C-alpha cells in the first residue's frame, strides 16, 4: 500500500518536471538573435488608417547556422510597460504560455534567411496604448527558439502610440437619443391617460 502511494507520488512529481522540459518555454531562455526595426510617420498613429513598416532579419554578428532550427517567423504588436499598469490582462510573464504582452499578430510566415520588410496597416481592433514590435522565431514544433524586438531590453526606446477607433457612429448616437426620448415621453403619456381615466370614472 505504501509502495503504491510512493509510486503514485513520484509519478506526479516527475510529471511536473516533465512539463518544464516539454511544454513551458520561458522568455528569458530565448536568445535575441533577430534584428527588428519599425518605421512609421511622426505623431499619434491611427488604428485602421496608418501603416507601420516592419523590417526583420538575423543579426549578422551571430555565427552562421544559428538559424538552422528556425522554420517560422511570427511578428507581433506588444504592449509597452506603461500600458500594462493596473491592467492584469496585459501582464508580462516569463513563461510564454502565460505571457500576455503581445496580443496582436502582425504576420506569421515561413522563415527565410534574408532580411524581410512588411508594410502593415494597423488593424481596427487595436486599442489606444503604447506599443513596440517583437518577432519570434519558431521551430518545426511551433515552439519559440529566438526573438528580436525594435526596443531595448527595458522596453523604453522606440515605442510608439496608437489611437484606437471609437467604434461610434452618428447613426448609433441618433438612435440612442431617439429611443431614450421615446421611453420618457411614453411614460408621461401613460400617466396622462391614467389620470384621464380616473377622472372619468369619478364623474
Amino acid at each position: 500500500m505504501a509502495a503504491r502511494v510512493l509510486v503514485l507520488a513520484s509519478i506526479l512529481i516527475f510529471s511536473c518536471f516533465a512539463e518544464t522540459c516539454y511544454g513551458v518555454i520561458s522568455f528569458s531562455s530565448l536568445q535575441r538573435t533577430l534584428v527588428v526595426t519599425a518605421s512609421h510617420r511622426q505623431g499619434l498613429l491611427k488604428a485602421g488608417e496608418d501603416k507601420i513598416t516592419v523590417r526583420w532579419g538575423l543579426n549578422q554578428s551571430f555565427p552562421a547556422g544559428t538559424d538552422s532550427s528556425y522554420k517560422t517567423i511570427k511578428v507581433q504588436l506588444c504592449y509597452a510597460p506603461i500600458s500594462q499598469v493596473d491592467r492584469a490582462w496585459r501582464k508580462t510573464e516569463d513563461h510564454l504560455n502565460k505571457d500576455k504582452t503581445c496580443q496582436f499578430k502582425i504576420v506569421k510566415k515561413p522563415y527565410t534567411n534574408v532580411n524581410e520588410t512588411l508594410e502593415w496597416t494597423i488593424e481596427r481592433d487595436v486599442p489606444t496604448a503604447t506599443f513596440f514590435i517583437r518577432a519570434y522565431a519558431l521551430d518545426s514544433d511551433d515552439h519559440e527558439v529566438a526573438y528580436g524586438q525594435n526596443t531595448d531590453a527595458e522596453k523604453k526606446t522606440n515605442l510608439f502610440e496608437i489611437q484606437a477607433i471609437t467604434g461610434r457612429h452618428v447613426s448609433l448616437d441618433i438612435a440612442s437619443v431617439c429611443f431614450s426620448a421615446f421611453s420618457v415621453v411614453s411614460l408621461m403619456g401613460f400617466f396622462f391617460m391614467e389620470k384621464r381615466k380616473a377622472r372619468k370614472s369619478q364623474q
Partner: protein
Amino acid sequence: MEIEGQATVKESQPPKFALLVDSEHKATEFHLFSSAAPHMRAFHLSWISFFSCFVSTFAAPPLLPIIRDNLNLTATDIGNAGVASVSGAVFARIAMGTACDLFGPRLASASLILLTAPAVYFTSIASSPISFLLVRFFTGFSLATFVSAQFWMSSMFSGPVVGTANGVAAGWGNLGGGATQLIMPLVFSLIRDIGAVKFTAWRVAFFIPALFQTLSAFAILIFGQDLPDGNYQRLQNSGNKQKDKFSRVFYHGITNYRGWILALTYGYCFGVELTVDNIIAEYFYDRFNLKLHTAGIIAASFGLANIVSRPAGGVLSDMMAKRFGMRGRLWALWAVQTLGGVFCIILGQVGSLTASIVVMIVFSVFVQAACGLTFGVVPFVSRRSLGVISGMTGGGGNVGAVLTQLIFFKGSKYSKETGITLMGVMIVCCTLPIFLIYFPQWGGMFCGPSSEKIATEEDYYLSEWSSKEQGKGLHQASLKFADNSRSERGRRVHSQTLPSNATPSANV
C-alpha cells in the same frame, strides 16, 4: 378581472378569482403555468420585467474584455464601474419601497424601468472611463424593481405560498444576471459576423437589453394591476383603500430592528450574488485563459442556477413554516446562508478549472436559496410598511455588493482568488445576526414565543397603528393580515382556537 369601484360591494357577492383566495383576496395557491389575472398575471409581469433589468445592469461584464480596450479602462476603472452599478440601487430600493406603499407597485416599477432605459441606450455611446461609470451607475437604479416585484407578490399571494411566489419571481428575475452572460456575447458575435468591427459591435449589442426593458414596462402598464381588487388609484378614489401617510409608513419601517438585521444579512447573500455577477466572467477569462464565449457560458451558469435555487429557498421556507412556523424559516435561512459562505471560501482556494466550476455551482445554489429564504421572512416583519421593509432589505443587498466590491475587488490589491475567499469569510460572519431576530408571537431561533401575556399576531401588527388611526378604521387590512398570518405558528396553530369573527378562506 376588476370589480367596479362601488362603495356598496357586499361580502355576499364575492368576486370570482381563478385561484383560491383568503379574506384579503390574496391567492393561497400558486399555479406556475397559469397566467390568470390578477394573481398569476402579476407574477409573470413582475418576473419578466425584473429579469430585463438584471439583463441590462449586468450586460457590460461579459463584454468587458472588449470594452476595456475600446474605452482604455484600467482595473481600477472597471472596479469603480462595478461598484457604481450596484450602489445606485441602495437608495433607489428604499425609495421604491415607499413608492409602492404610496402609489402601488404597477406605477412605481413601470416608471422606474422607463426612466432607467435611457441609461442603457446611452451605454452605446460611452467613450471614456467616466461615461462608462455613469451609464453603469444609472442603469443600476433599475435593480430597484426587485422591491416592487416582491411587494407585488406579497400583495397578491398569502402566507402559505408567499415564500414560493417571492422566491420564484425574484429567482427568475435574478436569472437575468446569468442569462445576460450568454446573451450579450452571442449578440455581440452575431453583429460582428454581420460585418461590424469589434468596437462597434458591442455598442449595437446594448440596444437589445434596452429594448427588452422598454417593452416590459409597457406590458406592466397595460396588463398589470396593483391588488387583487384593482389599482390603487381607483380603489382610493372609491374609498375601498385608504391613502396612507408617507411619514408614518416610513417611520414604522425604519424603527423595526428586524428590517435592519435582514438588510445586513441580505447584503451577504444577494450582495454576494451581484458581486459575483460582476467579476466572474473576467475571473474565468483571465485565470484560465478561456475564450470570451466560454468564460461567458461558465459565468452564466452561476446566475442560471437561479431558475431553481432561489425558488427552492422560498419553497423550503414555506415548508419549514408549515411544520415549525417562523422559527423554522429563521433556522433554515441561517443554515443555508452559512453553508454558502463556506463554499465561497472553498471556491477561492481551488485552482483547477473543473473544480472551480463545480464549487461555483454549489456555492450559487446555497447563496441564491438564502435569498429566497430571506424573502420568506420579510413579508411578516411589517404589514403597514411592507414596502419600506422590502426596500430596506433589498437596499441592504446592494450595500453588501458595494462594500464587498470596494474592499476585495477594486484595483489590484487582492488577486481575485483571495478576494473570493475573504468574501466567503465575511458571509459567515455577517449571517450571525439572524440569531437576534425575535417575534413576540412566534419566537426567534433560540427562544419560543413570549409567554408573559399571550402575545398575538394582532398585537404585533396593530402596534403599527395609533389608537386614533384605529379609531378611524385605517387598520382593517392589517387586522385581516394578522389573522391570515396565524399559519406562522407552525403545527401549533391547530391547537389554538380561532377568534369567532375570523373569516375562513373564501372559495370560488
